[in-house]
């Protein structure tokens, strides 16, 4: 889940228009950029799609961290392609958000000065090659849990972006799992690396779904608008139920002593992540918050002369073209 803790905006629009809008959503119609929409719907979506886009962009960093150290040419190529896909996801999500009246540059500035967030998961470090497996398997796996239902979200451009994103994400997840398989079946050191990666990424992955529904005050409106399709707890449960057998197949141990199958509910009982840690990470105190934002700020600041130069050239060229006509 690449958008967390999205506060839905209260809306004070004409009640008749609101009712008609809700009726369209209830009938399963897609809302398109030029359609009338409540102010709160627009604002919430900008925040949600923007945060999702930022997550894709910042999400390049923990995996980009291993491109130059990938163990084989094939692994290097796969990882490059994956990180490139993520930049592409960022691009179409920014485009989807732009249809709501906010520019990519504005959203970038808000990311860089901390007004907008990105997913908490990308503030954790990638320390070994097995982390490339764990990120694909667990992080992309958790993201897919959220994004598959979002293919049916009410806002047309977001829905269409999700359809495209999901195709690539499921491929990423399989690649991640493939890395884990190789590691789990490899040398004792490789197996230890794989277990170590699972130990570190398990709880941060559970945190990706956001705090428990009982603590989440913003869900109802977003669910009515079909911006949010499932509750945080539903998705988290689904993720655990899917992932535990995969860990068993790898011969790895989920780092949760309380993990047990609950026949009655047809799912696992599992330990909650440390929510204090989650809120610290959101507040900027995760292990890599400083580095991640510093890297994005540096890329933006160092790139200013490039953007200015290319813009100046484009202007010169159009002036020359007009003069020649």
């Amino acid at each position, binding site marked *: 889940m690449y958008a967390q803790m999205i506060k839905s905006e209260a809306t004070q629009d004409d009640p008749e228009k609101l009712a008609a809008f809700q009726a369209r959503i209830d009938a399963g119609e897609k809302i398109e950029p030029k359609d009338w929409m409540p102010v709160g719907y627009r604002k919430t979506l900008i925040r949600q799609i923007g945060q999702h886009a930022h997550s894709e962009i910042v999400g390049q960093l923990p995996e*980009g961290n291993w491109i130059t150290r990938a163990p084989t040419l094939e692994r290097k190529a796969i990882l490059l392609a994956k990180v490139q896909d993520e930049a592409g996801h960022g691009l179409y999500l920014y485009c989807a958000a732009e249809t709501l009246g906010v520019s990519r540059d504005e959203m970038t500035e808000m990311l860089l000065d901390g007004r907008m967030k990105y997913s908490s998961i990308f503030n954790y470090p990638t320390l070994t090659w097995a982390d490339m497996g764990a990120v694909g398997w667990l992080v992309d796996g958790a993201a897919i849990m959220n994004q598959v239902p979002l293919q049916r979200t009410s806002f047309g451009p977001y829905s269409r972006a999700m359809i495209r994103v999901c195709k690539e994400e499921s491929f990423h997840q399989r690649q991640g799992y493939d890395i884990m398989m190789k590691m789990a079946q490899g040398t004792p050191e490789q197996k230890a690396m794989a277990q170590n990666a699972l130990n570190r990424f398990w709880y941060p992955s559970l945190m990706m779904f956001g705090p428990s529904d009982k603590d989440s005050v913003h869900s109802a409106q977003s669910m009515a608008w079909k911006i949010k399709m499932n509750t945080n707890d539903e998705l988290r449960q689904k993720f655990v139920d899917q992932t535990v057998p995969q860990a068993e197949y790898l011969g790895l141990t989920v780092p949760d002593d309380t993990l047990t199958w609950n026949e009655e509910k047809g799912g696992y009982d599992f330990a909650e992540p440390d929510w204090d840690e989650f809120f610290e990470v959101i507040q900027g105190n995760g292990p890599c918050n400083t580095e991640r934002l510093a890297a994005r700020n540096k890329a933006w600041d160092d790139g*200013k002369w490039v953007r200015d130069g290319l813009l100046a050239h484009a202007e010169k060229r159009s002036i020359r073209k007009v003069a020649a006509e």
Partner: protein
Amino acid sequence: MASVDQTQLFEFLCRMGDNTLVLGHRVSEWCGHAPVLEEDIALANTALDLIGQTQMWLGYAGDVEGKGRTADDLAMLRDVWDFRNVLLVEQPNGDFGQTMMRQFLFDAWHLAMLKALTASSNEQIAAIAAKSVKEVQYHVERSGDTVIGLGDGTSESHKRMQDALNLLWPYVGEMFVADAVDDAMAQAGIAPDLASLRAEFDAHVGGVLAEATLTIPDGKFTHKGGKSGFQHSEHLGHLLTQMQWLQRAYPGATW
């Protein structure tokens, strides 16, 4: 196909593959740090093409050598003196302008070389070149456009691009200086006479740099020692330290 010394053929293939490997690695260092999102995507795409080409060149090199070494063995388990890339591609990224100038100068040579190699008497080399040339045609269009855009942009971008050209121009000559390996390849019809590529390169590069309002530095001096492996720059060792670390730290593991 005229017979050719297999050691020299191996050497030639390592030159092609090491160029793409080392440049692909350098370009991949940008991932997530480019000036705009579109450049991040384009740089990753270029790196991806180059790594793919590396797999073909070094894979074939391993076959020719006949000692059972794979493309990965050649990439990950040789030391600096065994690398055969030109010095240009191992130069550090510097700023974005330096990266794109390095890319353009290499791309322009690479395109001319690959075009000639599509007519190689060695079918496998001709096939690798035919696949690669399509990718490199796109690389050079993009790097050339960027050099023009930044050279003819603001005064700051112009200065940075001129500085990059001044820094990198002395590495151009090595790509055209033939030695015994190149002569043997040319005689067997495997590869072109390198000097014959120079006119096309000069016309192409000269045109782009003129449009970019940049001035080619005076002087004929050329750094050498990369493709012969005699004397690489200090930068290559650091690059290999990073690239080969996992394979060196856990020998024999499968990834």
